[in-house]
């Protein structure tokens, strides 16, 4: 349980998917204009990450490694992710048509959201076990969710400010993300002894 919590906190705050690794930037920048759609997409990402991570772990551990087919990893992982996203899309369409309409194109685009595939690849390169990969999936998704709602809330307020024309929209989104990244750096001050045995290294 301690491991679970450690990895959850580490992946959500200290090594945030968006702010430290730039994963999932496309939808992060494009869907962060209003808070409600951002919340919906963030929840969908947590869900998809939390499901695909253990599935990919099982596939990697029990099929790819014993059969020495590691070079098929990319194709298999992306297939798992694509089908999971399809499933989520059907569920959302059935139970929440409003959210489905609001997310629009970006729900299928979760397939090509780098955070999902990136999470699975990090999981392999850091040699997590099953519990750790679930923790990493949920934590990473939660961190992504936090980052996108923070950016959306800031962008909603900045709309009425007098920004230089050339920086409006995209430029400001980049600057805010950068500043948020610097702010999240302060969380690296969390007691490192708690994370003893951590093998992954920041960039």
């Amino acid at each position, binding site marked *: 349980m301690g491991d679970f919590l450690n990895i959850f906190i580490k992946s959500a705050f200290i090594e945030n998917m968006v702010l430290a690794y730039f994963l999932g930037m496309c939808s992060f920048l494009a869907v962060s204009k209003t808070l409600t759609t951002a919340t919906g997409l963030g929840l969908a990402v947590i869900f998809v990450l939390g499901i695909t991570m253990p599935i990919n772990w099982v596939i990697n551990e029990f099929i790819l490694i014993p059969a020495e087919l590691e070079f098929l990893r990319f194709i298999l992982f992306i297939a798992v992710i694509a089908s999971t996203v399809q499933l989520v899309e059907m569920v959302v369409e059935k139970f929440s048509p409003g959210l489905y309409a609001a997310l629009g194109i970006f729900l299928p685009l979760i397939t090509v959201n*780098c955070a999902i595939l990136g999470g699975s690849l990090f999981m392999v390169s850091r040699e997590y076990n099953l519990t750790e990969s679930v923790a990493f999936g949920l934590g990473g998704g939660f961190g992504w969710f936090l980052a996108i709602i923070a950016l959306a809330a800031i962008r909603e307020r900045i709309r009425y400010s007098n920004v230089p024309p050339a920086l409006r929209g995209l430029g400001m989104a980049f600057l805010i993300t950068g500043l948020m990244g610097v702010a999240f750096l302060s969380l690296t001050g969390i007691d490192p002894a708690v994370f003893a045995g951590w093998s992954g290294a920041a960039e």
Partner: protein
Amino acid sequence: MAESTEIRTGVVADPAGTEKEPLFGKKEKILITDPLLDNNPITIQVLGVCSALAVTSLVYPSLVMAVAVVFVCAFSSLFTSLMRNIIPKAVRLIVQLVIIATLVTLVNEALKVLAFPVYKQLSVYIGLIITNCIVMGRLEAFAMANKPWRAFLDGVGNGLGYGLILVAVGVVRELFGKGSLFAGSGIAMNIIGPSNDTTQYWINTAAESGIGSFFGWYANNNLMVLPAAAMFVIAVFIWIQRSYNTKLVDVS
């Protein structure tokens, strides 16, 4: 000169525009040059920002990444375009993903053999070219509706436009963050920094005489090494570009 004749013959000899298109005429040239600036994948289309910014703290990995993306982008466009008439609409995304994933696997294995240190440095980001929106975005928007040669050029152009930003960010971050350029490659250059060895840096800020003595105040900017710096550098690029070309300003 040769180009203008080509255009003229292309227009005059072939009003229908189907059979005798020049191999590399004006239209084809636009396919390559347009994504470099006015329709840049990163600063204008906002596609493909995801997978590669983290590698830009040094120039050399960014360059390798740029080459990999140009390769994947060009050839996935070519193959998709060749198959565009036999791919059923319903499964086209999966077909495209398989094409991209196969090419990326090739790049991955090739890098592992040819340049293992860079391969380790890039780690998961090579695999993440699969989910790089610019590759799939161009397949959807261009390759599915155009002939192979033009699709190939469009892929090359967009890959180059993407690589241009990547390398530019890499140059700024490495030069101001570490005082070097191309570190880790065969042509590593140490531009500026303090050192006891007078030959190590081009501008030695610890030197008593020469150019270096004017730069005693200089220190590396540690912010540039942080991931967040890539954001600031790109924001400044966008700022400069949109100040010159006001048509691009976001009105919303």
